[in-house]
């Protein structure tokens, strides 16, 4: 049961703290999905990307398996 206790403690820890915003590091498909889901749930999100645009490697792909649809 160590895990449960740990999580409960974590919880108590967090409720006392100030910040509910979230940083997402990396704006590829995964980072974009995370940011959208967070924003849709009412979180304020900082999406941090190193490149001049978001999109990551998926933006560079022509089409994607297994449906061969466009990736952009």
């Amino acid at each position: 049961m160590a895990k449960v206790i740990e999580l409960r403690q974590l919880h108590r820890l967090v409720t006392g703290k100030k910040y509910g915003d979230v940083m997402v590091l990396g704006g590829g498909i995964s980072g974009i999905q995370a940011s959208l889901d967070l924003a849709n749930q009412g979180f304020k999100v900082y999406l941090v990307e190193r490149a001049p645009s978001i999109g990551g490697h998926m933006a560079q792909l022509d089409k994607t398996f297994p449906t061969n649809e466009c990736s952009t």
Partner: protein
Amino acid sequence: MEGVSGEVGDFKVTLLKKARYIREDKCTGCTTCVEYCPVMVPDPFNQEIGKSKAVHIYFSQAIPLITYIDQSCLYLKEKKCGICETVCENDAIDFRQKDQLDQINVGAIILAPGFEPYDPRVVTEYKYGIFGNVVTSMDFERLLSSTGPYEGEIRRPSDQRHPHKIAWVQCVGSRRVTPGNNSYCSAVCCTYTQKQVILTKDHDSSAECTVFHNDIRSYGKDFERFYERAKNLSGIRFIRSYVTISREDPVTKNVFIRYATPNGVVEEDFDLVVLSVGLNPPKYSKELAQKLGIELEEHGFSKTEPFNLIQTSRPGVFVSGTFQGPTDIPESVFTASGAVSQTGQLLKHRKGKLATERVYPEEKEVAKEEPKVGVFVCHCGANIGRVVNVPEVVEYASKLPHVVHAQEQLFSCSTDSAKQITDVIKEKGLNRVIVAACTPRTHEPTFRDSLREAGLNQYFFEFANIREHCSWVHSMEKEEATKKAKDLVRMSWARAVRLEPLGEYELQVNKTALVVGGGVAGMTTALSLAKQGHEVYLVEREKELGGIVRRLHYTLEGLDVQGFLRDLIKEVYAHPLVHVITNARILNATGYVGNFVTRVQSDGFVKEIKHGATILATGATEYRPKEYLYGQDPRVMTNLELEERLAKGDESLKDLNTVVMIQCVGSRNEERNYCSRICCSQSIKNALKLKELRPDVDIYILFRDIRTYGFREDYYRLASDKGIRFIRYEPQSPPLVGVTDEGTLRVTVEDEILGNQLEIDTDLLSLAVAVVAPEGVEETALKFNATVGLDNFYKEAHVKLRPVDFGTDGVFVCGSAHYPKHIQEVINQAYGAAGRAMTLLSKETVTASGAVALVDQNACISCGACITVCNYGAISFEETPKGKKARVNPVLCKGDGLCTTKCPTGAVQLQHFKDGQIMAQLDAAKGETDILAELDRAVGE
């Protein structure tokens, strides 16, 4: 990102915002500066194959769609030039910009820094950068793309000729322990290569494609069929052999490859060689880890908790996507949703207070006005523009009656273009908008939003598809395609002027969730939702929770599965918000997103559950084999049965001299044309355990391809090192199993390498049997309006972008009910489903479409034809003063319009697709006389 201090709930992150030398609020993305800039640099987005300028937009659909100046700029290097500053009309160039340090405070962090494609230059044997016509698969993606260096034409580097004979080399940088390579399997390159082969054949149907491979790892959903599709194209060879890229022809620059055949080594030349490079950890991942204070695992990816790959070594820091380890897009998407769910578990109290609701201006009353139509024709980069003459279509559209504005756009879907549409609507008082571009499927919401932003009802928007329906299918007939594009625009125009404004329906959301299936997937989802404050009903068919994992004891990595399961079950029962119902049967389910009602029976009681979201996690089971004497000889068993004996410490296993395992039993055949994904690893796991018990036991694994993708490859290598023998068989000549007169269990298999029949007398035969969907899946699916795919696994709304949603709103899927998976992957996906469900449960209301059927009760003759035909139970009779009449529940209606085809009096009309609107569109396709002439011809007049 420069550093993170503090702790969960109160992180301080230092960010360095690099100077772009562009005022973001001023730049309109017009690219005048790019035209004038004299410095040509290799284009990083196009893998440095094409050229771009020192000032340029990263790529044509970039977000933000504005320029940046890189360090090759003459002004930045030596204070010369500065021409861009002169030509920019918007005063957007700013050479004084400095890198800026910023600090933000956040409660949690999600890491999604992805991967870096393997760089084959680090090892000279791949000849990348040495022979001109050796490219990487990433380069090849750009060559295929219409926004690529040759606008979608495949040309080879040495002479820009179209290569005709192309070879792919698999596992470049992967599955090797030599310096400069990675020991693991990169998990995506087998399938992306097949994709590239299919796309190459689309470009040039006579192309000759050869793939040199080791195992083909088609372990994902629909991958096996995808592989077959590629393999069965004409002019395709899949050759199983290690290769040497030997030399380059000094004149033609063709590249020679040496490979093994049954008749010895041969050398063959190719116009172009593509290296299927693997996935490395992201660049600078060590520095990144240091700044973040997280640990990395041995291959340089993020270290995670054994049973929770989303949790890094630092509390409050989560990881999603390929930084967990090599994986494809669908998994990168659901691990993202999973990371969001775990973030929500920590920060639930803040939710909803921080983001501001989007407020649209009030809608103007325009229904009674004369139509004022605006037409926007999209180039879609080169996708449309290369084939269809866009300016000509614009010119044509501008002449149609009521059209007051027509223009072209490079990418209508880009943020800036969509905003331009809004601006034009306001400026010119448009009340109908047509975008001629791609499909409503992806971008209808984008453009409807542009209308709403301008205070126009969103149902005044109309889409003309001139890409899928035109430029893509008529790429060789440019003139005809342009003509067709005009026809399509005219048809859309005919409908657009008849469009009517519609309202949408606001629905309350019930905050409770129902999870069907109490295996690891169901329990994980349930707990994650409960920890975010939602009540959850967890319904299990069996007496006990746990599902198939009750029969698993250890993982390939040696984790204690039963210990984990015990803790999980305890936690589920201990959580006050999770209500477990075992021995349960679902009687029926009704309702719709946010408002479902499900009746569940258990031990004689019937419980009615009201819930807003439903998650199906009904798992999978083991195939009962009919082959290989299973059930007839006690020495033959399934992998799971062997595992149970191993876990029980069965002493007799120590006396085994020889063990044989047969892979793909019941998988990858005509009946079940899919790979069960887990069984290769399962066999190796058992084999290694048997070796621990008795190091000199002889183990033979008879396989077709060994699919230990990702880090599992290391255990495959370990098994080989321990002397476990792997013998490949072809599906046409599977192993034969028999019992000799002396009672010996004998397995006969053709040994491809030695070229002879091999007879193995064995003490035990373990079968790697298929993972199959459990009984009753279709029934369950039907109750919840969910869909089941080809192999009886649930079918998600979109394989890549909505991997855990169903087409039916409010219903989600996870675990092996979606497709066979390893336990850690199941947990990943279960958190993913919880994350997606939270996007619904965290809201007070949801909106339903206005494009639904409506009954004119005066014309209804109460025949009930519409009620019978509706798949969603959306229509029923209601009592009215004029007797019983059909009524549509707009929330249940999916707008498929079946009912409208059945109603004998035309009393049911589908809003937004009314007969008059559709007929006008059809009539506009051709003149009436044309139609009559065609009908006459058809009946032979």
